[in-house]
């Protein structure tokens, strides 16, 4: 008992030290440096991947259309905090540049709440038709919704609520989007990324906390029970419909939070961002990190963000130049990304940090679901 307590104390101590390190990290870099930028993006993607992890990792519902929630979160920001609806003139809790622009301008945190509400509703709507479905059929229906929402984003400039109020701005994009506005702090700018980093970190901490609490709650156990054996779980009295919809709703809400943050951070909401490949990108973070494992997903998100935004464009593409070859590596970066995915997955099939539960199943074969060990090699 006391050793367990001690262990827990050491864990908490380590966590605090690491967290402190992460908080002060951007102070060692130029405030507009690419590194701080990559870190901020990684934090935003962690939020998103943790949301997807609830749907895919905890509840076992393969979602190939997660980009839908990113889109809805981002558009909420575009609708409620930009000059997009220039005929309206609503300003709540904003200062600086945004105060003098026409359009609807709500404070970032109000938009964040709206984004959570919208995406939760969207999550439940998308979840409803999948309730009767199993396995990969869920995947295709979520994929279909992701594609439909991507299409609506592209063609939304033709859908008008009334004159001057189209649904989206298509591929033209809604630019610029208001920056985060906090009381007592200077206006956020695009040349000082440190405040953005800290806000993103704050969001990640909130989401992490919710994730841990959910995983260890009654609901979390219900998700895992459904994932492992749906029929048994239902016969044990777990309300499948409610439990699944909760997973979609919470998972979607995290995607919405991250989407709203990214819209403000990237200063644009453009239909081209919401493609199927983005769903796959986030799913790869979850699976590569370790399905259902919270720390694994965090690591997976960081790894893929840095591969996509730093390793390939900045490090690898400079290599031929440095060794004196006139060879354009950008031509290969698509393939390199794919190759790295294959290699990492073959080397660590169960993910970088596997979920403790799954690891036990794989190593000792206890409680193995009927899908996992079907094709055992002789």
């Amino acid at each position, binding site marked *: 008992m006391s050793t367990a307590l001690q262990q827990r104390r050491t864990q908490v101590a380590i966590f605090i030290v690491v967290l402190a390190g992460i908080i002060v990290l951007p102070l060692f870099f130029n405030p507009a440096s690419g590194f701080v930028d990559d870190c901020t993006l990684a934090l935003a993607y962690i939020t998103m991947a943790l949301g997807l992890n609830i749907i895919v990792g905890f509840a076992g519902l393969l979602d190939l259309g997660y980009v839908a929630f990113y889109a809805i979160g981002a558009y909420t920001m575009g609708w409620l905090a930009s000059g997009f609806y220039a005929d309206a003139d609503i300003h709540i809790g904003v200062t600086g540049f945004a105060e003098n*622009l026409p359009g609807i301008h709500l404070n970032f945190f109000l938009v964040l709440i709206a984004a959570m509400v919208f995406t939760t509703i969207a999550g439940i709507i998308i979840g409803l038709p999948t309730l009767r479905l199993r396995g990969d059929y869920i995947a295709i229906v979520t994929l279909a919704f992701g594609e439909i929402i991507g299409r609506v984003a592209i063609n939304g400039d033709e859908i008008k609520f009334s004159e001057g109020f189209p649904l989206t701005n298509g591929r033209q*994009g809604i630019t610029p989007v208001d920056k985060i506005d906090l009381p007592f702090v200077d206006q956020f700018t695009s040349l000082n990324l440190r405040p953005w980093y800290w806000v993103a970190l704050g969001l990640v901490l909130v989401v992490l906390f919710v994730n841990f609490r959910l995983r260890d709650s009654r609901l979390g156990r219900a998700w895992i029970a459904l994932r492992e054996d749906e029929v048994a779980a239902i016969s044990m009295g777990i309300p499948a419909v409610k439990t699944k919809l909760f997973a979609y709703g919470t998972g979607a809400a995290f995607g919405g939070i991250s989407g709203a943050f990214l819209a403000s951070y990237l200063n644009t909401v453009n239909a081209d961002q919401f493609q199927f490949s983005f769903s796959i990108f986030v799913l790869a973070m979850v699976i590569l990190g370790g399905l259902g494992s919270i720390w694994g997903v965090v690591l997976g998100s960081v790894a893929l963000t840095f591969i996509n935004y730093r390793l390939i464009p900045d490090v690898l593409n400079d290599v031929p130049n440095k060794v004196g070859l006139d060879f354009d590596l950008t031509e290969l970066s698509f393939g390199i990304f794919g190759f790295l995915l294959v290699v990492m997955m073959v080397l660590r099939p169960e993910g970088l940090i596997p979920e403790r539960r799954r690891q036990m199943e794989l190593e000792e074969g206890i409680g193995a679901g009927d899908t996992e060990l079907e094709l055992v090699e002789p």
Partner: protein
Amino acid sequence: MSLGVAACGSDDDSGGSSTSDSASGGTINIYSSLPLQGASRPQTTAMVNGIKLALQQANNKAGDFTIKYTSLDDSTAQAGNWTPEATSQNARKVAQDDKAGVYIGEFNSGASAVSIPILNEAGVPQISPANTAVGLTTDEPGADKGEPDKYYPTGKRTYTRIVPIDTIQGAALATTMKQDGCTKVAMTNDKEVYGAGLSRNVQLAAQQQDVAILFNEGIDPKAPNYRSLASKAKGEGADCFIYAGITANNAVQLYKDFAAAIPGLKMYGGDGVAESGFVDPKEGGLPTSVSKNVKVTVATLSPDDYPPQGQEFFSDFEDTYGDKNPDPYAIYGYEAMNLALDAIQRAGSADKEKILEALFATKDRESVLGTYSIDENGDTTLTDYGLYTVNDGELEFDKTIKAETGG
């Protein structure tokens, strides 16, 4: 951590060069930011080639300054297209560089909307070789409310472009169709900023000139074919067809399907399709049986009218890349770099503010695109469009169109 220290260190030594104006041996960095991955790659690599050629001709010098050029990528491997993440990262990278002189980019108007505000805050002069969306520089028809001011947080203009805005090309195309006797025009666009904007402007100009547009339909560039769309146009009795968009959005298939559905159909296109990849069957373009009915407008002159440096460009381009008919994008890239070098030379300084001033003071510049100035909005004053026909897989200059903009 070492990275941060290095970045801070480099700040110091650049401070000296801007104070002593005539310092020979000062270095100025020029960046380009273009989507080098995915479907736009053929156009953007042509552009980078044009940029490199211009620099090579100038022996990496502008006045007393040595120019160092870096090509940045605003697309990512995962997306295969420009992304706001990569674009803002590029803009910030340049914004931080005290030796940065000029930023050439972006290729997509949507991406420029992202990079302009960042570069504007840092005061970096920007030249776009390809953006035609109206709202980036002016509030003329075609721009949204709040444009263009919302892109310039400092209130001072930092963005220029060397391609004319859509309004002008739209009028040029409508004029051509009217001259050719078109009565019912089927119009398609690729829904990108350039294509959708151009199609709107063609529509406006066509209305003024009494050319009936049957429909203006956005296409899905990933569709395998457009046979049913073409048969719809046939059913409505179209005698002319126009596509506003770029080759990379499945233009070849689109023209083939329309040509097959309606024999003898007259077909038109903007500068987005004015390239060998569209007209030359050897490079995967249209078969000659289809392309003989195609006419294309480009903001470049008849090769005979080129000033000497323009002639030189064509011969050098052939020497360097073995292609005697470079894409218009190569020409735009070439001119973007030349304009940057010219501005730096006229500024005689590595100071961004002075380069910016010189850039906006560009007047009657003789170039490969014709003689133009940069107005106070950052737009080029070029208005003439060249009409090209296609002969045996090659674009051939036909005539210069004076567009009837109708007021």
